[in-house]
């Protein structure tokens, strides 16, 4: 394996390991209180502008925390609890938009454009390297000839 391939392999390994660390769910079983806090932090307080249910001290946010606690105790998954709130309040109850539908387009298209652009650049550079635009003139050859011992 050439030194260049080893470098690419190392780079790929770093990317894969980084993605795995970021994407892998944090280990260990979470307590019910942690789940209530976690789900509550993803949901917008219904009667505030930009606070989460976990942060807000409004009466409705407190009621929502109690409701989430009950749902967790009843065995509902985080996704089921989130969906129950989306059904009641609409998708805007989520503080972070869902990673699907239009979100994929909006986030994915710039990335796709970047990859395509980088691909095009690589191809163009290779082409330019194979087809040099400067050709030696007779004067250049003469200069090289004279410089040789």
């Amino acid at each position: 394996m050439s030194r260049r391939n080893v470098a690419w392999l190392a780079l790929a390994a770093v990317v894969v390991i980084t993605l795995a660390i970021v994407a892998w769910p944090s280990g260990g079983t979470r307590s019910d209180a942690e789940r209530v806090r976690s789900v509550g932090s993803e949901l917008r307080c219904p009667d505030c502008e930009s606070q989460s249910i976990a942060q807000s001290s409004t009466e409705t946010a407190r009621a929502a925390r109690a409701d989430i606690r009950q749902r967790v105790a009843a065995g509902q998954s985080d996704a089921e609890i989130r969906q129950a709130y989306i059904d009641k309040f609409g998708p805007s109850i989520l503080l972070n938009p869902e990673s699907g539908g239009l979100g994929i387009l909006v986030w994915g298209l710039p990335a796709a454009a970047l990859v395509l652009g980088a691909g095009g650049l690589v191809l163009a550079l290779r082409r330019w390297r194979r087809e040099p635009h400067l050709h030696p003139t007779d004067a250049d050859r003469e200069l090289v000839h004279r410089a040789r011992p």
Partner: protein
Amino acid sequence: MRHRARWIALAAGAVVTVLAVVLATQVGTDPRADANKSHLLGQNAPAVDLPTLDGGRVRSSDLAGKVVVVNFWNSWCIPCQEEHPALVEFFRRHAADPGFAMVGIVRDDTDGAIRRYVNDEGVPYTVALDPGAQASLEFGTRGQPETYAISPDGVIAGSQFGPSSVTNLENLYAAARGQQ
């Protein structure tokens, strides 16, 4: 090679065009626009069992078979104060109808402040308290005033977020009666 570069340029152009269309059509859209309408329309209204200001209770089971208008409000909310005359006028128009009931559910306020407001302004329909804000949460309220019309079979037939006029309320009533 030249063809490949052309295809890449074409693909990049297509991606940029789609991105431009998506951004142009979606960026101006308010992501919280869905917060201005009830997502419970067409669904069964949440069951409530709440204490009333006069010491009684209001239960959804007792209101079955009636058109029920539910108004979430409180004493300190200016839009609630502004819509108050419309609510009173609307209630007076239908108060004699045995198939009609109206409940004002207090959101985020104290008993004392509500009693003062009711004494000063007069609220001719049932005023229910919502300790623990359970009803506010169950109805998916975002604030006050919010008004819901429930059909005789218990389905939420209409909603109004923000202050209502008599016309709004009549439209909600008609929707709950199945006349719209």
